[in-house]
Structure formats: C-alpha cells, structure tokens
C-alpha cells in the first residue's frame, strides 16, 4: 500500500492523540454500588467491625486470656460493664475481660468466614469453569463428584474431623473449606455453559488462544460478578457454621474463642443475671451478619443490573 506523505503525517497525528480512558463494567458497578445506601452502610459497618476485631485488643485492659482471680468469684457484681474499670463489656464467667475476648472472637469468626469464602471462590470457580468449558464426559464426571460430596452430611463430617484429629483452627478451616466450594462449583459451571457459546469465546478459539488461557482470560472475568456476590453471601454462612460448631462445643480450643463460643457461654450464664455476656457478642454477630448480607445484596444489584 502506498501512502502519501500527507496521509502519513495525518496518521502520525492521530496516533499521537491522547488516549481516552474507558469506563469499564467494574467502574459502572462501583458507581451503582455507591448509590445503594444500605450497601454502603453495610460496608461501613464491616470496616468498623473489622477494625474492632483486629485492633480492639490494643485498647483492652488485659489480654483475652488473663483471668482476674480477685473478681472471678463474683462476676455478677464486680464484673459489670463499666468505663471506670476499663472492662467496657464487663467480665466473662471466669473473670476474663469480655472486650478483649469479643475482639478476639470476632477476629476468628471473620477469618473463618473469609478463609471459607476464599477457598470456595478459588477452588469452586476453577473447578466449575473447567468442568463447564471442557464439557462432555469430563463435565459429567466432575459434576458427579460434586454430587457425591454434597450428599455426605457436611456437619457430621466436620464434627468427626474435629473429634478425630483434635480441635484446632486448621482442622476447622479444612473441614469448612472441603465443603464450601461445592455449590460455588455448580453455580460457576452453569454460568460457564452460557458463556461458552458466546461469540467472543469462539473468536478467541479461532485466534488460537489455548483452552486454559481462555478460561482465565475470558470466562473467569465474566463470572466474577456472580462469584463476588455469592462469596459475600457465603461469608456469613461460614460464620454461622463455625458458630454452630462452637455452640456445640467443638469449635476453637480454649482460651481462644469465637463469636459462636462466646454466645454459647453467654446463653448458658444468662440465668445468673450476667446478661451482658450474651448481649455484646450477640450484637457483634448480628451486625456482622447484616452487614455482609447488605453488602452482598448491593453487589448483586450493582453487578447484575438486569435482574432488578
């Protein structure tokens, strides 16, 4: 092709123009999310709760495992929540500072929720995307494995694991992680099946892009919306599961604690009149749950505007 000098000059000029910044679908979603007041409030609450969970202990009078023997005999009268003594949330039944313990328990609960959700996001997304994209017999086998695992009573397995291998945080993560990705894998597979036949996937195939690259570059980014929504809704579910296990007395090992454990202790001691032992952990638990649900709802509305 022969270009005249003028053409070349004009071309060079057009090539040198400042690049316009595009508005990505993510930017659009962020704007929609920010307009949703409940979701923003939820996120704000989550930040506060997390700050409390990770830095709250610095402001406590004692560590979460220090037992104040001088007052542990009469917690009902000596261990009331008070600003003067520094025990803002009072003492627990053994004379430990409840403020420090609530902070520590919230931390464990949030970590359990986040770890469970991340395992489910990473494993579930990849498993589901591969299964859906490859299709055929591979898909059948991979999904039947998921079906089989889902058929196993999940709480029973976790309890067995904790009883057999002892109560430890890593065992709890393992138990929750083992099962949390199953439903995620199913959701992702379904979405992948609808994406797989879109023309941009065919275009990538026609261009000769490798299968795994297509999954990572074209399928997963287009799934992230639904995955993000599901993951935020999964976090409270994980926290609930952990709380239930702790409520049964099989959660984390004392003196470590979690919200479920604290609530269980508080509920047990309610009849002695130390109601604060129940109320404070319960309040944090509820706030965290609601905040996660609001954020999840907001994300769903923001990322999937068609569904409204």
């Amino acid at each position, binding site marked *: *092709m022969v270009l005249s000098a003028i053409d070349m000059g004009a071309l060079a000029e057009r090539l040198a123009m400042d*690049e316009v910044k595009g*508005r990505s*679908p993510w930017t659009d979603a962020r704007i929609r999310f920010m307009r949703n007041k409940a979701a923003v409030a939820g996120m704000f609450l989550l930040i506060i709760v997390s700050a409390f969970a990770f830095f709250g202990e610095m402001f406590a009078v004692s560590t979460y495992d220090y037992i104040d023997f001088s007052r542990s005999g009469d917690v009902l009268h000596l261990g009331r929540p008070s600003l003067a003594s520094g025990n803002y949330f009072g003492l627990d039944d053994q004379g430990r500072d409840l403020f420090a313990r609530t902070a520590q328990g919230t931390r464990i609960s949030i970590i359990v929720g986040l770890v469970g959700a991340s395992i489910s996001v990473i494993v579930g997304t990849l498993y589901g995307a591969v299964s859906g994209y490859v299709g055929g017999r591979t898909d059948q086998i991979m999904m039947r494995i998921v079906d089989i695992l889902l058929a196993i009573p999940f709480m029973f397995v976790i309890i067995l694991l904790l009883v057999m291998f002892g109560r430890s945080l890593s065992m709890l993560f393992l138990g929750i992680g083992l099962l949390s990705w199953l439903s995620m894998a199913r959701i992702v597979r379904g979405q992948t099946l609808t994406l797989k036949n*879109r023309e941009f996937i*065919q275009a990538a195939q026609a*261009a000769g892009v490798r299968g795994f690259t297509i999954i990572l570059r074209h399928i997963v980014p287009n799934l992230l919306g639904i995955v993000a929504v599901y993951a935020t809704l999964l976090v409270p579910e994980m926290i609930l599961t952990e709380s239930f296990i702790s409520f049964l007395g099989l959660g984390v090992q004392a003196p470590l604690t979690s919200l479920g454990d604290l609530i269980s202790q508080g509920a047990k001691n309610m009849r002695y009149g130390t109601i604060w032992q129940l109320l404070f952990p319960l309040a944090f638990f509820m706030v965290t749950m609601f905040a996660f649900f609001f954020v999840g709802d907001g994300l769903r509305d923001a990322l999937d505007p068609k569904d409204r």
Partner: protein
Amino acid sequence: MTRPLLKVEDLRVTFHIRREGDMPWTKPRELHAVGGVNFELMPGETLGIVGESGCGKSTLARAIIQMVPASGKAVWEDGVDLLSLSPHQMLKYRSDIQMVFQDPLASLNPRMTVGQIISEPLVTHHPGLSKDEVKLRVKAMMDKVGLLPNQINRYPHEFSGGQCQRIGIARALIVEPKLLICDEPVSALDVSIQAQVINLLMKLQRELGLAMIFIAHDLSVVKHISDRVMVLYLGRTMEVATSGDLYSSPQHPYTQALLSAVPIPDPAAERAKHMIPLEGDLPSPLRPPSGCVFRTRCPRAEARCAADAPRLNPGDHQVACHFPGPLAETVKAMEEV
C-alpha cells in the same frame, strides 16, 4: 493458473444427536449439517455463500477452521489438509485464517478494553513483541478500520454496533491473514451501517490482497461484494457461478426462487416480476429427502429426482440439477402444475 489458496473437497459435517431420554446404548441419530461441499478459493478472491437459515453456511465456515469436527479435505495453498491437523499443528494456520462474527457486541469480551481485544490474536501468535510495539500496531490497525486510535482504552459497550464490527474486523486483520471468513458480518447492523462496513471490507481486501469467504442471507449484499457465489440448500451445493452470471441467469430452480424473493426498490418492477413461491418447509436435516434434497419443494421435480442425487456439472457455472434451465422454464413448469 495460480494455485488455489484453499481447496475444499467433499467436506462433510455430521452431528450426532442424542434425544432426551435416549438410553446410553441407543445409537445417536445423525444430522448432516454439511453434506459434501466442494469449492476452490483463489488468493484475493471473494466467495459468497448464501442460503436459508439452517442450511449449513456457518457450520461450513466453522468446519474449515476446525471449530466443528468435519470429514473430507480442506487443502491450504501449501498442500496441507487443514482438517487432518492436530489442534497444535493447526495453530500455525490460525493466523492465516481469521473470522469476523455476526453479532458485533457479543463477539467482544465485555470485560476487556478494545486494545486488549484487538491485540489478542497478535499476542497469541507473536509472543515476542514488546508492549509498545503491540500498542503501535493496534493503534495503526484501529486507524485503518476507521476507529480513532485514542479510543484504545475504551470498552466495547461504549461503542455502537458498527464500531464494534470494526473492532471485530481489526482483531481479525491484525495478524495479517490470507483468508478472512465473514460469518454474516452485517446482518445485525442497520442498512446504512451495513454499507459502511461492506465498503470497509472491500477496501481492506483490495489493500491487503485478502481472500474472503462471505456468508450472508442478504443476496444484494453478497452480489455487491462477491466474485463468485455459492448457493447452499440443506448442506448441499445447489449452484456455483460468478456473481454476475448467477444473478443474471440463474439455472437452478432454488436459486431462481431465492432471487425472485429479493425485493426490488421500484414498485412497478416489483409488481411485474415473477415470484416463485416455494411450498412447504425446509426438510429436517435429520431425515433429508432421497436423491435431490430440493425435490420436495421444486416446481420441476420428476421421478428421477427422487432416485439419484444430481452432481455439480463441471465448468464455470456449476449447477446441481437434473433439469437446469433459465427462469422462464421454471415459471412455465409452475403454471402447468
């Protein structure tokens, strides 16, 4: 005579269909989407493929680039049969054959910027290129297809349908292919935009010396862009001729029926022309008619048509019909019925 760029011989695509509730051991039914198509494509030539929906146009195109399994031969200019290659061996040829898709927006990943979309084939086939080099080439290609190069960081949803199709064309051309397969590239666009995109394709074809396979169901668009036109019906070739020949003197009754359905933008001429209405529906490709597949709807069908399938006669104007003839004869045959 130069060697053809692509020589397709007896290309067949058969899908195996399993019905809901079939037992695992029942034999799947066979659906012949494309049943033995032959054609040659010269370098720089445009072959138009027309036919009704579901006649196997797109499947034929996808079979050539191994996106659906096919049997037969598709010999590239260097003598290699593309259909016999493993996916890994095929990789080398993928940059020579690129494709433009029907739905402009759906063929672009909504989460990628235009720059990322256009550069994808380039980066795949030339992994050694530096980022600046890639960007420069993308911008030059955007300029060539009539997009402003400074829009490189925008996302597909910020463009109109016509612009999206230009992005699709830029993506196909960035690896400098020898053959461009256009699968109904304009049927999703407005008429005025269609003209722009068609003219762009023709301009680029001249500049780059591309061969094109142009699939469409809009006959006037195909006439405008193609050197030769192939008419498909139920996965079989009915007629192949140069564009001028086919439109001025169609020999196959099916082609004549197709052409008579094209509206003429002149009311007087429109009223005067002979319509050849086809009766009945397209037969199911699961149970194609015996002999000539068109016989169930053909005004000229006779006993022989059910018995044996007509072959394409050799020559420049190829027709697969036992009783080919000009339009007047078909009209007469219809009036007799």
